[in-house]
């Protein structure tokens, strides 16, 4: 049994390699398709022909494209994404520093939306036509039509301006608190490690509005998929058999139907994660959240291309890795799954 599963897992990991290569090629093409000449850019305003040519040779831009690609890949292997023009630091370092802020926000939002969407979907599926089914439908339709950045602004207006119960939407921590010592970079975890409850609460307060914004956005596809797959599981033959065997309604629903309904929900979760990573950029801009999304937006404004490309590549790698994890969880949830057919 175990060797078979191990083989499945290795097969799945090997299947993500062509995609990884594709991602690297696309990001290389994006880097080389830049408008204007990076050499002119880096050489500065006072550069003449000679110094531009010098910078070009220094950057390796005088080589042929395949050679440049090899250089690019070997730089990537060493974790070198180039220098950011605006911060003057290596892009890798900038991204690593800001990534925890984005991840903290994204993960909290996903947990929040799963813990609402999945129960809601189950309730809607087990009571079709009830008020909770209608609520689910309304939420689903409204949720997909809400631009995230707009939801965020409306929430700020209501909870910060009108009600005054939310802190000012500027960053991860109000200036009255001191940043917790960096262990993981996640403020909630770091503050908990330091035992600083006040800072923990301060960081949690800042997180509430942006994570609700993101969660509202991801709620719709998850709830819709949970409802649909739960409905089809409940109407299948094995549930009828379980009913006729006299199992309790609870064990039919949660042990039999829900387990089988979970698979498509997890597939949807992968897609939702892609949306969330994109929406993150918008939410981070609205809430001045110092994550990698707002880093990319700042870089875009000043045409800092190394930073933007590094961000795009980092996001794609994150997403490929996540899809891998999701597919591997399949094998844990459903042993019937194999990847050979794909």
């Amino acid at each position, binding site marked *: 049994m175990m060797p078979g599963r191990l083989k499945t897992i290795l097969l799945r990991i090997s299947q993500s390699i062509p*995609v990884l290569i*594709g991602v690297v090629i696309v990001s290389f093409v994006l880097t080389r398709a830049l408008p204007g000449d990076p050499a002119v850019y880096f050489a500065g305003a006072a550069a003449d022909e000679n110094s531009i040519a010098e910078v070009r040779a220094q950057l390796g831009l005088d080589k042929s494209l395949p050679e440049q690609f090899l250089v690019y890949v070997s730089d990537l292997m060493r974790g070198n994404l180039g220098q950011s023009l605006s911060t003057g630091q290596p892009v890798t370092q900038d991204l690593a520093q800001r990534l925890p802020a984005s991840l903290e926000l994204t993960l909290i939002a996903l947990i929040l939306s799963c813990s609402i969407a999945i129960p809601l979907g189950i309730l809607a599926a087990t009571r079709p036509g009830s008020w909770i089914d209608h609520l689910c439908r309304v939420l689903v339709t409204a949720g997909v*039509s809400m*631009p995230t950045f707009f939801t965020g602004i409306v929430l700020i*207006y209501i909870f910060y301006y009108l009600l005054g119960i939310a802190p000012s939407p500027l960053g991860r921590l109000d200036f009255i608190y001191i940043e917790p010592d960096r262990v993981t970079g996640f403020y909630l975890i770091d503050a908990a490690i330091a035992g600083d409850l006040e800072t923990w609460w301060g960081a949690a307060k800042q997180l509430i509005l942006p994570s609700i914004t993101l969660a509202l956005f991801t709620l719709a596809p998850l709830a819709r998929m949970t409802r*649909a797959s739960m409905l089809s599981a409940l109407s299948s033959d094995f549930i009828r058999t379980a009913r006729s065997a006299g199992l309790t309604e609870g064990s039919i629903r949660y042990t039999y139907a829900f387990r089988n309904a979970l698979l498509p929900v997890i597939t949807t979760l992968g897609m939702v994660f892609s949306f969330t*990573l*994109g*929406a993150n950029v918008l939410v981070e801009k609205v809430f001045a959240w110092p994550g990698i999304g707002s880093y990319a*937006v700042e870089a875009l404004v000043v045409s800092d291309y190394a930073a933007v490309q590094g961000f795009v590549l980092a996001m794609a790698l994150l997403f490929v890795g996540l899809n891998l994890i999701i597919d591997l969880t399949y094998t844990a949830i459903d042993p019937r799954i194999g990847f050979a057919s794909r």
Partner: protein
Amino acid sequence: MTDFISSTANPTEPDVLVERTSGGFFDHLIYVLRGNPITLIAFGMFAILVIAAIFGPLLAPYDPAVSNVSIALQAPSWQHWFGTDNLGRDVFSRVLIATRLDLLISVAAVALSFVIGSMLGAIAGYWGGWLDSILNRLFDTIMAFPLFVLAMGIVAALGNTVENIVYATAVINIPFYARLVRAEVNIRRDAGFALAAKLAGNSDIRVLAFHIYPNALPPMMVQVSLNLGWAILNAAGLSFIGLGVRPPTAEWGIMVAEGANFIVSGEWWLAVFPGLALMFAVFTFNLLGDGLRDLVDPRRRT
């Protein structure tokens, strides 16, 4: 057998068929609309959008570009339904006029990805083989990116213009169309009617374009409608972070971005009205897509 071939090769025969099915289609349309009045509402909302896009500049009560600082930041009133912005421009006029640009961007992007996706998908589905594998790997790669992030990267690489927003939105949508067409074409590649058309002397391209591909159109229309809403959101998101459309052009995403600066001081109307317009458009296309799905695929009715 000769009868069969001559009837498929005879151009009048399919016409009769089309007429018969379209009569049935309209009966079906009326039947579905009666059962689902929401689709009817969606068509009404769609008409409002189209009217606003075509006649917006004629209907706007004020010139959307003229600023008048003496009436800056006024709350909504009978004179200015949606209030005025920080430069004293009429928000209602700007929201109305932006309809055309927002719809144009998304329609152009969706049309591009529809055409390119159809061609690539049809090629991959009909001929298969190494072409199919290469195209599939390409689509996998595109889908391996978080799509909005890829669009950001494309716009950053190609340059910050409205056309490039259209191209970027088109590129990230192509895989969805291509996969759909590929699946629909692939299952009909060796179907009886396709083989018969080929035996009757039609070329591969002709069989593909006129006999097989039209079968993919109904699910494609649903995809187009759902996709239009998503394309609008995407384009507005890109201009919200400062890509593509530049101020002072009236566009919903950028208007929300500009209005966001005033939300913390309580001037909500700057951001809320363009945001609501955006939601209205996306909502319309989503409703329309659901309705169209009921129309073309009764099994998936929700």
